[in-house]
């Protein structure tokens, strides 16, 4: 059995876990990050990409709003390359309580969320597809943020600064307890079955919606995280270039976020028992389409690209003695298990939203330092992530501009997302993986309108050609991609996307006949 020794073991490679790793590394600690799947495969990779201004919470949860606007400004400083400064709008549609708008404006003033009221005509000039009957409009500093870019920048940065070990595809199968002390965990590489023991002075449970399961492994009771499942729809192109919110109390389907080449509408809220629940109910899809129509008339005529589920972690403390919960804010929850349960070397951080991941990490690493008996200051408010050194925001046209510079040098293998063969081969070499899904997330391979119709054959062919793969492995890659993609399109297979799916069937079954590849 291989072993690894470290100061801090972080289980959970989403935005929170990665932020903890980055913060800890900056403070000079050695860190290991483990996730049972690829990084950002959980909740962080399944939301709409919104960098909150806080406007959403100014009435309902002013504390959360204050946190959001502060963190919004900090992230713009330190993670600019991951952020596209789209700006945001809150609009009062005919379906919203007109009285809310004034409460909203007051709430922004009270919480420090920058807010400027504009005439509806001006909002409509900027966003011509918005409901023409909006009666009020407010500008706020919403933006979008790319969680993959951010997390991988943090991972890279932590590795460069203090040799952090980043271990995707390593599931925690056991958390080690020695008496009243957690001393680390056993990890299993899900691809090979090999196991690895990690000895850590402190273990951080940053698994979000799965936090209860990991806490159970450590023998700690009562960490109940209720998964709140919601679906989101990506529409084929940006119907709006600004984040658009309904000006009302937060509810289902009240936001459209332009992110990369798509715009995402979300979300719904269905309680479930299982954080791995990925059901998509037809009624939820229909409801979101109706919600879309309210903000953007004609929404149902636009093309829906893909639907997916995300699970929000909603923490409920089942322990009587709440005094010990370090509940700095109702928005997220840090459980210092030394205080709460008398078990040292273990903290759980859960709840929250991606916008506040840096703050959550700061509190977590402060707790870690307490466990270590050391005092090390946090520097994540000012330290820029790798890639964000210039402080320049991301612009959507960047990929197109890069392609234009390279037109004669390299072939495009994924045309929708402008991925060149060179870039794909480089990513293959770097990641050394045979899971096309990993490239879906980082390169956005197969995430465009054709949903892999053209690029997946190319990708598989390239992988087989340079990777020393067998044909069986390549076939498996291809077939599992097709099945995985089918899951995301099946519930929204109408209109243009159905046409696309039929063309893709033509290619895969008619021309390539992949269904009859020798098993």
């Amino acid at each position: 059995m291989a072993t690894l020794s470290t100061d801090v073991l972080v289980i959970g490679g989403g935005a929170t876990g990665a932020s903890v790793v980055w913060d800890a590394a900056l403070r000079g600690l050695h860190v290991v990050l483990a996730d049972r799947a690829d990084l950002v495969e959980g909740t962080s990779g399944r939301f709409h990409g919104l960098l909150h201004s806080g406007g959403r919470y100014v009435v309902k949860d002013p504390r959360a709003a204050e946190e959001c606007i502060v963190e919004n400004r900090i992230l713009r400083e330190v993670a600019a390359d991951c952020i596209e400064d789209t700006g945001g709008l809150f609009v009062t549609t005919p379906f919203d309580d007109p009285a809310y708008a004034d409460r909203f404006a007051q709430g922004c003033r009270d919480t420090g969320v920058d807010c400027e009221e504009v005439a509806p005509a001006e909002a409509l000039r900027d966003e011509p597809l918005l409901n023409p009957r909006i009666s009020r409009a407010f500008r706020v500093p919403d933006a979008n943020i790319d969680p993959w870019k951010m997390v991988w920048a943090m991972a890279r940065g932590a590795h460069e600064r203090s040799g952090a070990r980043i271990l995707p595809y390593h599931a925690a199968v056991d958390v080690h307890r020695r008496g009243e002390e957690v001393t680390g965990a056993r990890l299993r590489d899900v691809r090979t079955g090999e196991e690895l023991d990690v000895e850590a002075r402190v273990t951080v449970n940053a698994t979000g919606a799965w936090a209860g399961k990991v806490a159970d492994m450590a023998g700690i009771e009562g960490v109940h995280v209720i998964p709140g499942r919601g679906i989101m729809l990506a529409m084929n192109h940006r119907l709006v270039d600004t984040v658009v919110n309904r000006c009302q109390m937060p509810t289902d389907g009240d936001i459209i976020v332009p992110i990369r080449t798509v715009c995402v509408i979300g979300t719904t809220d269905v309680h479930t028992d299982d954080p791995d629940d990925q059901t998509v109910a037809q009624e939820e899809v229909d409801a979101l389409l109706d919600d879309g129509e309210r903000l953007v008339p004609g929404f149902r005529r636009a093309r829906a690209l893909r639907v997916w589920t995300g699970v929000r972690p909603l923490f409920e403390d089942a322990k009587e003695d709440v005094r010990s919960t370090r509940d700095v804010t109702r928005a997220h929850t840090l459980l210092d298990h030394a205080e709460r349960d008398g078990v040292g070397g273990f903290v759980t951080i859960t709840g929250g939203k991606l916008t506040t991941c840096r703050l959550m990490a700061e509190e977590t690493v402060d707790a870690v330092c307490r466990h270590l008996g050391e005092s090390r200051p946090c520097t994540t408010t000012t330290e820029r992530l790798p890639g964000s050194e210039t402080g320049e925001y991301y612009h959507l046209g960047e990929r197109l501009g890069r392609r234009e510079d390279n037109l004669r040098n390299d072939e495009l293998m994924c045309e929708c997302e402008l991925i060149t063969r060179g870039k794909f081969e480089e990513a293959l070499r770097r990641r050394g993986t045979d899971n096309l899904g990993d490239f879906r997330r980082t390169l956005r391979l197969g995430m465009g309108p054709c949903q892999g119709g053209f690029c997946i054959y190319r990708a598989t062919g390239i992988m087989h050609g340079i990777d020393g793969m067998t044909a069986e492995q390549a076939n498996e890659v291809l077939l599992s991609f097709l099945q995985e993609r089918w899951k995301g399109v099946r519930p929204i297979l109408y209109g243009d996307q159905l046409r696309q799916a039929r063309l893709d069937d033509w290619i895969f079954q008619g021309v390539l006949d992949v269904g009859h590849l020798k098993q």
Partner: protein
Amino acid sequence: MTEVLHELLRGSLDHCVKCTICETACPVSNVTPLFPGPKYAGPQAERYRVGDEPSVEWSVDYCSGCGICTQVCPQGVKIAEINAQARRKLKQQNGVPLRDRLIARPTVIGRLGTPTARLANASLRSRPLRIAVERVIGIHRDAALPGFARRSFRSWARRHSSPATGRRVVYFHNCGTQYYEPDVGKKTVAVLEHNGYQVEIPKQDCCGLPLQSNGLFDDARKYVLKAARVLAPYARDGALVVGNATSCTLMLKREAREILGLEDDPDLKLVSERTYDVCELLLELHDRGELKTDFHPVDEVVAYHAPCQQQGHGIGKPALELLALVPGLEVRELDAHCCGIAGTYGIKREKYDIAMAAGADLFDQIHASQAGLVACDSETCRWQIEHATQKTSVHPLELLHRAYRLPEPTG
């Protein structure tokens, strides 16, 4: 208003299923890597374009605007129209060169050239002068430039009055007829009159298409609306608008409304509904049994090329069906999408070679057809064809005129 229409066209990108059919038909991307193709420049790149962000591309400038992609797209994506918007944005950002401003205004050139036709034509044939023009302005030294007519079409039209028959059409004769080929105009009028039409020829200016193709949208709007103001009163009075230049009639029919966002102008709307290509009109006449078919035999083998913007009308190739009525005339349908000139595209220094390569397939077919004559509805295509193949090229109307044995135009 313009932006809304822009959004409507942008919305059509949702129909793109990346099938590559547009790429198979694009005459430019098939011959040069400088243009990655209509699928790339249109629905694909459009997803990366944000309204108020600067343009990051240069390759869309190589799109010639022929519109074949939109024609063949089985899903209804307005590819060429999306490209036109992107091109315009690029040009606004980078500035429109003097050359483009100049060649986009054929009436300005025409007004300068016609009074001094002999001198102007001689200059255009002077090699040293052409080389200088290429260096200074950027028009390729070998580009097919037409010769100015000594007297404009208008000077004849002013003195011409059509017999009153009660069946009125208003003739939109286009700049080509006005300054370079007035005889084509005279023959068009004669053929229409032979078929019982009273032809009104008001004073008129450019339809604005070259300005639009060169990204000068505001100027293009001025011109096309001016044309609409001239033609609309006739249309309101029950007359049809007839043109012999298929690019210009397409501009009036739909391009101005779609690309320039003039959907709501009532004059233009009326004009667009009443505009006919002359062959289109004559064929419908024939369908009703009303076309004069007193054709004398014409013993010629003629190859017919439908210009890309004729195909853009979506009416098939009425010229073919008309020419089939002429006894003795053997018509060979050419099977190419584009001659390459695409209006003003092919005369530009940096695009001339691309244009000639794009048209190569057509030129080969013309030679292989062994036709003595090439019929084509667009004057810029005719000039390109003559330049590349040395074969005489005529408007299909001219063959009908000949078959009717109508008197040769004078003055």
